[in-house]
């Protein structure tokens, strides 16, 4: 290890091995974590990050290697066992119970009791006290699902720290948070660091890694690439470590204005829905990419849902090539040649138990009706075609899509819409939660599609990305479209200003 620390590490994994049938998921990986340190863990999907975490927390039985905590060898039998040792984990999808109150979630299994009965007052008081350490002042008797994901995430951290208190593993905690919420979370992480916890931090966002971590460890294909002090490494080198190659596609300002040839393909005027998104005007040309920037909950997903008919618009109208078009349901939108890759792949996107082939054929089949079944041979050809084109990593087209990784599921979703040959495709966070390689491929694909004349509306919280491929960018705030940037105006700075600007010009 290049930057060995004189102190004894808090958590030390030595030569951890994990073998799955056919693959070596972890091949003798070393990893060390000090008290009061934030240690980032990086790597593409499939690099072995999750496997390493699961071996550390005992969710997997490792096939070799030692794990030392405070210098003592430990062998956790499962998540709970790990917790007892002092190792807590918080996942991207909050692993708390939405139907229980905040206080119950915090104290589950450790409720204060009097005469065998739970003392609700003590439980709530304790919850309030614990959360106040994290700067949260909320009604702890309300159910968890009445709070935002960020708050839930902090509650999850609070619970993990309360129960373990030595090592905190954060597995992509920021994936569904907006910038403000990330800041709140990082404040929490910093304060925990000061309290002497060792924190393992996993994220795809390089900015965040540079901002929060002290050291970082990169894995690739189940092997340790290296551990570095964050302050001493630059971006390019880090990406090289992760990919083992130069990034072919560096994000840079696009600079080119879309040649608005002729009339727009789609014109939405006064389009909106009460309570979801204020009426907006939007026109889209063939071969144009429109970016949508804004924070989570600002109305960006709502914009997509209104356009696609998921939420019925209650004002305005839509015209396609000059003729009015009805968009009151996804079916009508699909009939008009729309496609929509939703943000939440798991619940809104893939049909987990159906095969890759069936998932790809689904939207096309739904459009041409149940009576005219796409013959198996055609389905297979279609699926194989896109498996090749989009480089979907799957042994064959018959594998249930739920068993694929997130990035590959995203590609299947894309393929599902591409086979319908849409004229207008809406992508909501197409690159969220997927590894850097797949990320670049999807961005290249977006550019390719628009070159072929498809119109795209892409929602993303990665502003660099929007700068790279958008011809115009709509900025959304407080459920309103507040700005439209085009050409040279499209810079991250302009977007951030538009997102952040308090609304002074508003009349009401």
């Amino acid at each position, binding site marked *: 290890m290049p930057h060995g620390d004189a102190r004894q590490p808090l958590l030390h994994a030595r030569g951890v091995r994990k073998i799955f049938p056919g693959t070596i998921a972890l091949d003798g990986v070393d990893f060390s974590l000090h008290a009061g340190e934030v240690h980032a863990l990086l790597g593409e999907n499939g690099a072995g990050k999750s496997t390493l975490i699961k071996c550390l927390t005992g969710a997997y039985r490792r096939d070799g290697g030692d794990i030392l905590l405070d210098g003592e060898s430990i062998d956790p039998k499962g998540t709970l066992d790990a917790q007892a040792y002092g190792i807590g984990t918080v996942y991207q999808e909050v692993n708390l119970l939405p139907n229980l109150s905040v206080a119950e979630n915090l104290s589950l299994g450790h409720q204060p009791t009097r005469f065998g009965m739970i003392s609700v007052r003590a439980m709530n008081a304790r919850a309030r006290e614990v959360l106040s350490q994290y700067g949260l002042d909320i009604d702890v008797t309300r159910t968890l699902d009445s709070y935002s994901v960020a708050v839930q995430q902090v509650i999850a951290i609070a619970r993990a720290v309360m129960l373990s208190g030595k090592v905190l593993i954060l597995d992509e905690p920021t994936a569904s948070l907006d910038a403000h919420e990330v800041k709140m979370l990082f404040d929490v992480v910093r304060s925990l660091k000061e309290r002497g916890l060792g924190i393992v931090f996993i994220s795809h966002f390089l900015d965040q890694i540079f901002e929060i971590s002290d050291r970082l460890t990169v894995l690739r294909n189940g092997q340790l690439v290296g551990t570095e002090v964050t302050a001493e490494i630059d971006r390019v080198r880090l990406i090289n470590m992760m990919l083992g190659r130069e990034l072919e596609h560096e994000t840079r300002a696009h600079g080119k204005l879309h040649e608005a040839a002729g009339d727009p393909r789609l014109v939405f005027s006064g389009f909106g829905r009460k309570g979801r998104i204020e009426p907006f005007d939007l026109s889209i040309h063939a071969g144009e990419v429109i970016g949508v920037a804004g924070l989570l909950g600002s109305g960006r997903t709502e914009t997509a849902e209104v356009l*696609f008919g998921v939420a019925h618009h209650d004002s305005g109208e839509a015209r396609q090539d000059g003729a009015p078009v009805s968009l009151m349901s996804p079916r009508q939108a699909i009939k008009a040649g729309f496609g929509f890759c939703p943000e939440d792949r798991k619940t*809104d996107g893939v*049909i987990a*138990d159906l095969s890759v082939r069936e998932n790809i054929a*689904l939207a096309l089949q739904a459009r041409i009706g149940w009576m005219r079944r796409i013959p198996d041979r055609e389905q297979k050809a279609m699926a194989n075609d896109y498996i090749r084109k989009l480089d979907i990593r799957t042994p064959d087209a018959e594998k249930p899509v739920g068993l694929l990784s997130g990035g590959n599921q995203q590609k299947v979703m894309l393929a599902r819409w591409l086979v319908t040959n849409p004229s207008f495709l809406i992508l909501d966070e197409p690159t969220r939660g997927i590894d850097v390689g797949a990320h670049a491929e999807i961005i290249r694909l977006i550019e390719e599609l628009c070159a072929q004349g498809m119109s795209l509306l892409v929602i993303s919280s990665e502003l660099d990305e929007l700068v790279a491929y958008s011809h115009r960018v709509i900025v959304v705030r407080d459920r309103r479209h507040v700005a439209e940037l085009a050409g040279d105006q499209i810079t991250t700075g302009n977007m951030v200003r538009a997102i952040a600007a308090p609304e002074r010009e508003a009349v009401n």
Partner: protein
Amino acid sequence: MTGFKLLLRRILPQLITLALVVGLISIMFPGFFEISLANGRLYGSPVDIFNRGAPVALLAIGMTLVIATGGIDLSVGAVMAICGAVAAWGITEGYGLLPTLLMALAAGLACGLWNGLLVAFLGIQPIVATLILMVAGRGIAQLITEGAILTFNHEGMIFFGSGSLLTVPTPIIIAILTGALVTLIVRRSALGMLIEAIGINFRASTLAGVNTRVLLVAVYMTSGLCAALAGIIAAADIRGADANNAGLWLELDAILAVVIGGTSLLGGRFSLIASLIGALIIQAVNTGILLSGFPPEFNLIIKAVIILIILVLQSPRVRTVLAFLSTARADAAGQEKKVVEP
């Protein structure tokens, strides 16, 4: 060819179970396999199993589709009573065979429509939505028969219960034809895949443009239609509509048949033929009990124990253990991985 092999592998557990149950009966009752021709009709205990199993088999066809969408239909027994009552009423009122049959089938469709609307458009949980018709349906059937057993002597109608075609009893033919037809429609069209998609992920299916609500309604209507056929058979069999007892508790048998057929109650992948074999297994157990000569107070306990054994052997955990014993260790590790994934 591979499709056939896949199918065989899918229904193999059910086939083995059926063979075991039948084997058990034939040990206790050696004359079991004797089949003869009487009155131009096949006659024998195996024929009885098919014949008596026909109503449950029909219910199981509709039930399979409903369960594949993640729902359940508790009302099918009551719907049988309603449709039987309509059929008996129509024939005694002299509407003629064809109009009467159409009326009975329409009644089944209407019941399915009601269930489907409650589930798909009012968003009521299937078990509650169909409970309403389960409670009220028998009342509706009695309203039609005015509480009495409405008897008829129309030869054409009776044919559907106790007639035969080319020596095969009509109910068997109806059940097989319906099963084949529904399988054909569902698998040759895209319906099967769309139904499975709805059962696995309703919201994602809607977003992919699947007409989820209409399909849901259609599935409950199919269930109603199957129940109507079963109701007509049941009424024709005894030449009368017995509103109180026709199809009583058969919904539970139908659900059991589907589960024994290996379709998950959570919805998703389904197999109609496996459900049909499931219905046969249940009827084989029933017929076996009748042939055994045990006192009737033991009927339920025998049935419960046999079904419990079948279900335990088919349970995912026991299957995993069996798979673990029969395949390589590596395979089992793969299984374990799937289970652990949070």
